[in-house]
């Protein structure tokens, strides 16, 4: 009898784990980035291009772009929006690619998923370090998978921080989206040239 209960428990726990596709989605993405980008011996350019592909596929860039631009998104033309999204993606990819240099073997442990508003989900995780870092992934269902709409590190929402940053820039620059796009391009080039010099 005991054996049967044990087997049942094992089966159930496996099912619970396997039936959380949101965790699987983030776990697979983190694993892919870790193997192909962070710990691989590829060149910086190759790593950046692989990360760019993974990032643009996993993140709902159009939705995030709308949010971070706030009211300026509604007033912007289609071309301005597309140019902004491209510059935003370039800068974000370059910034994150630079952050991977600091990686020194920390592990990411997933703790579960829970509901957010509008049918979206949160996946809770912790990066194990001397001071553990809480990372929450906000996902929205898309087709038969998910898209990342926010990453929250120690309760700091990435999209909220970008929105505040860009709102302030726009306020000081005649609410001009092209000026913001130009600034993002300039920042990307700066990061690119700095990382080449290092």
């Amino acid at each position, binding site marked *: 009898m005991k054996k049967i209960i044990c087997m049942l428990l094992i089966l159930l726990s496996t099912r619970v784990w396997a039936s959380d596709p949101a965790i699987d989605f983030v776990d697979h993405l983190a694993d892919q980035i870790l193997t192909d980008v962070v710990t691989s011996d590829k060149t910086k350019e190759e790593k950046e291009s692989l990360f760019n592909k993974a990032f643009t596929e996993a993140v*709902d860039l*159009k*939705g995030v772009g*709308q*949010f971070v631009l*706030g*009211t300026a998104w509604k007033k912007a033309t289609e071309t301005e929006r597309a140019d902004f999204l491209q510059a935003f993606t370039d*800068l*974000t990819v370059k*910034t994150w690619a*630079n*952050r991977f240099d*600091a990686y020194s073997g920390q592990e990411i442990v997933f703790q579960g998923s829970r509901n*957010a*508003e*509008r049918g*979206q989900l949160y996946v809770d995780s912790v990066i194990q370090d*001397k*001071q553990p870092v809480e990372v*929450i992934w*906000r996902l*929205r269902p*898309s*087709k038969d998978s998910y898209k990342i*709409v*926010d990453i*929250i590190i*120690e*309760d*700091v*929402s990435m*999209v*909220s*921080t970008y*929105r*505040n*940053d*860009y*709102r*302030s*820039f726009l306020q*000081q620059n005649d609410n001009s989206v092209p000026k*913001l796009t130009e*600034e*993002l391009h300039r*920042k990307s080039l*700066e*990061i690119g040239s*700095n990382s080449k010099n290092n």
Partner: protein
Amino acid sequence: MRKNFFVLFFCCVGILTGCATKPTDPEELKAYEEVNDPWEPMNRSVHAFNQGADKYVLKPVATGYRKVVPSFFRDAVTSFFDNLAQPVHFANALLQGQSKDAGAVLGRFAVNSTFGFFGLFDVASEAGIPNPENDFGQTLAKWGWKGDGGPFVMLPVLGPSNVRDGIGTGVDSLAHPLGWALWNEQELHYGLLAVDGVNARERALDLTDDLQKSSTDYYATLRSMSRQNRKKKINAVLGEKESGEKPDYEVDFSDVEWED
């Protein structure tokens, strides 16, 4: 003397720059209230002063310190000052009625002061003892000053804060045992504070470089991040949110038109 300088500095900057103008557009007004920074012109002046002091003094010294001093020694400096601050964290944990935190802080202090050789080695963290770092800003929140802690304040040298937590920082620094132990040794006291400051700046070098490079308005980014992160520390002492209540980090995506 130093205190007088800061009061004078604040008054001059305040008179010269004044307050931010409240917008009339509803969307703009919502954003204005969200950031809660009515003294923005003054805060930006203090930020500019901080940036100058950092560029020409703090950052070069911290960078040199990183180059010259090996990382194990820097870790020991961090642990030493962290351990010295534990009595302040302990008092705050008691004032907040956080018995679990008080126990952890006491445990840390006992373990690190003995096995950690006067706090030079953080054996408590290795043993899995948490470091809750209870501060007086949290104590004020626990006593009833909830919410975002009043308007945003950019403190000279110390950086982003708000009225409640700025007062908290002041009280915590007055209560710090180093000041009392070295009451008659002010030169040594200020020397140690300088080492603590340089060490803390060194630890933040990578983060601040990263943020400066990636943000279009560094001031707005610091303001936003510090406010969000501070909410986490405040919520830690106010207790978990009730189930079903929206977490503070949940942004409102209602304006976004999602595409599949």
